[in-house]
Structures are given as structure tokens and as C-alpha cells.
């Protein structure tokens, strides 16, 4: 995240944040030590990983299949732990 630090003259009035959801620009994938790897052939579209991912890093596609967004994934491993078909495996980052 390369935020341009603003001067006090440029800040919105009343200390508000007026761009709702602007954390979307923040990359939290750099926190990750373990990386979830999805085997789409095992996915039964149950959406458990989508529901439980704390980082909103599981994208729900049109047909309820899923895709992992590594820009946000912090590597907690809940998706792999909860996946009923073991379609997601955690592997070491960088290996």
C-alpha cells in the first residue's frame, strides 16, 4: 500500500473517511506464510470457504464455484480446514 500522506489542508471535513470500502486497495496477502491451493475438480460449490474466509479472499463465481484472491488472503487456513472434500491444501509460501 503506497498511501500518499496528505497535508492537513487536504483532509475531508469532520475527520470522516468518505470513500466507503477503500481498504480494498490494501494488500494483506503479504501477511501470508501458508498458501491455500484449490483443486477445482474437487469443489462441490458448497461455499463453506466463501462464508468463512475472514479476509474476503475467496471469490464466489456465478455458478458458486470459487477462486482464491491472493492479494487479500492472509493464509489462516480456515478454508482448507473446513473444506468437506479437501479441495484446498495449504502449502508453504515460496515453495
Amino acid at each position: 500500500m503506497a498511501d500518499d500522506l496528505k497535508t492537513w489542508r487536504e483532509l475531508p471535513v469532520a475527520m470522516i473517511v468518505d470513500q466507503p470500502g477503500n481498504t480494498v486497495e490494501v494488500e494483506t496477502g503479504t501477511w501470508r506464510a501458508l498458501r491455500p491451493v484449490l483443486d477445482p475438480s474437487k469443489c462441490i460449490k458448497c461455499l463453506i470457504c466463501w462464508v468463512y474466509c475472514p479476509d474476503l479472499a475467496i471469490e464466489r463465481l456465478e455458478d458458486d464455484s470459487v477462486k482464491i484472491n491472493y492479494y487479500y488472503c492472509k493464509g489462516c487456513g480456515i478454508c482448507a480446514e473446513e473444506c468437506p472434500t479437501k479441495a484446498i491444501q495449504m502449502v508453504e509460501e515460496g515453495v
Partner: protein
Amino acid sequence: MEVKVERQIRTGLNGDEAVAYAAYHADVDVIAAYPITPQTIIVERLSEFVHDGLLDAEFIPVESEHSALSAVVGAAASGVRTFTATASQGLALMYEILYIASSLRLPIVMALADRALSALINIHCSHDDAYAARDSGWIEFFAENVQEAYDLVIAAFRVAEDKNISFPAIVNLDGFILSHSIEPLYIYEGQDVVREFLPRREPIVKLDPDKPVTIGALALQNYYIELKRAQAEAFEATPPYIRKILREYSEFSGRKYDFIKKYMIDDADIGFLVLGSTAGTMRHVVRKWREKGRKVGLISLTLYRPFPVDDLRDAVKGLKKLVIMDRSYSFGSPYAQLYMDVAATLYDEPEKPDLINVIYGLGGRDFNEYTAEEMWEKINRPGVKKIWVGVRGD
């Protein structure tokens, strides 16, 4: 100035009732308050106005002053006109939220029936509570009498809600001395009259599902100081707008309001500077002393925050001595609170009067002609800098 009595009613009210009528006539939307002496009559009357259907407002009978200010913070952030009232311990309990209300630029109006802080517990007047709010970013007015309490609450709504200001405002009225004393005053015939001076609030920021904003985020080392710098700039920019509104209100009411009031000060050698109802007492005293040949005069502050620096510098010109009367005490500070503001205000002036700090009236101790005479005797002792009056043992 022309007294516009045609749409005003001459009546008798105590200070609390006058404040309640002012909030009613200002057509306030949400009130949250908790009973505390000597403010209680304000919330009692407002409850009556709401329960009798005279005032279309939500009255939230909260379980503490902390929740009172928190609730009006929520309501003010939703864009409506809000009011609360408290005193002393209640203000102390609100303290944390005072800073938040100002930081978030929420134009809440609060009446503060000034009362001494415990211990020992006391229900009568000191300015401890008014002073406790001085650094928090609230505009503060002081009423000298019941008429001013009524007028300043109405004016305070316009001031607080003005788009160029948008800061919360306190109207101080001395506990019991004003809050419980019935005085004659003019009030407006009703909301329709006041609406001409005080239109519906147009918020600069609000909680709006159609335009979501985040209010009250976490700001750390990389932004907190910029946010405070911006708040300071905005607060310091308020005086011209406050002045303009007080002038408009003077026209509207036929009663003159400005930042400070002066009485027989222009040719005086010794000036007295006061806040609140003591201005009335001291005006009487000054008149009597003038008859005795003492060249004295009086300055009282209607606006206490932001501190009326320029007005005060101008008003003290030519004085040999300025006696600053504090109805509070600042433990461990070189002088009491008002004195320190004045000393800082005058420090850079090439010519300035000698300053004396008088501590008086704590916990409702009467300040009258006799106390004033004691004060006169003490301030004329050589080398006097800080004295207490009306206290046994001094």
C-alpha cells in the same frame, strides 16, 4: 437598538425554564439528558413540552450524562438538531465525549448550569465545570442573567449549526443564581418566530445510507496530528462567523450581543473582568464606587471560547490595573483559569495593566457589595498578585 416587542412576550421565568423555552422555541429534534441539580428543571420542562405535544422532539431519558452526550452525538451525526443540559459532576462524566463531539464537528447545544465539582459535594455555583470544557473544542458562552440564558441558547444553535462553524456550543448559566432565580424577560411567541432566525439545520456531514461515510475512525501517528491541525484551524476561524451571528441576533431580538460587555471601562484606571452573573453584581458595585470617586470599570465575557483575544486587548487599553475574578481554582497552576488566559492574551502587548487574580464565590459563597468592598481593600495592598475573597481566615 430597537426593542422588538411585537412578537415577544414579557414574562417571568427562572434560568432553567428560560433555557427550556429556548430549546423548545428553537424546535430542537432530539434531547437526551439526565437529572442533576441545578440543571434538572431544564429537562423537566422539556419533558413536559414533549409529553404535552407542544414540542415535536424525541426526548431520551438516558441513564447517565455519559449516555446523554453519547446519544446526542449519535443524533447530531444523523443530521438533526440536538440539545442536552448538565452541571458539574454530569459534565465531568461527559468529559470523554466532549472532545469527540467537537472533533466530529457535531453542532450540539448544551446548557451548563455551572456548579462546583466535588469533593465535598456541593450543588451551588463555581465555574469548575465551565472551565473543564475549555480545551475540548466547544464554543462557550456565559449568560449574565435569565434573558441572556434564553437568548444565548437560541443564538448558540445558529452559531453551532452554521456551515462555517459546525462545532458544539455550551451556554453557561450560574447554578441557582440564574438557574433557580425568577427574573423578568422577553421570550418569543413561539417556534414560528424563532424559525425566521434559525432555519432547519443543514449538516456538513451525516450518517446517510444513500451516501455512506465512516465517522470516528482510528487515526495513528501518520494522521492524528494533521486531523488536529485541521480542527484547530477550523475552530480558530470561527470568531468572525460567531460575531456576525450575534449581530444578526441583536437585530432580531432588539437586545445587543457581542463577545464582551464593557461598563464604565473607557476612562477607568482599575478594571474588573468577570464571567456570568457576577457581572450584574459588579455593575452595581462599579456604579457605587464611581460615586465614591474610584475610577473603576467592568468587562464581562459573553464569549469565553474561542477566547475573545482582540476584543479584550482593545478593552483593557489605558487600564493601570486589571482584576481578573475566577470562580474556580486551578491547583498547581500559577494562577486560576481566566487569569491565565488573560495573561497570555496581554503578554505581547507593549503596554498592559498590572494583573491581579481574585478567587471568589466557590460553591455558591455569596459575592455581594460587602465582599466587593473586601476585594477592594485587598487589591490595594502593595504587591498583591493572587487573593481569595469571601473566605474565613484570609
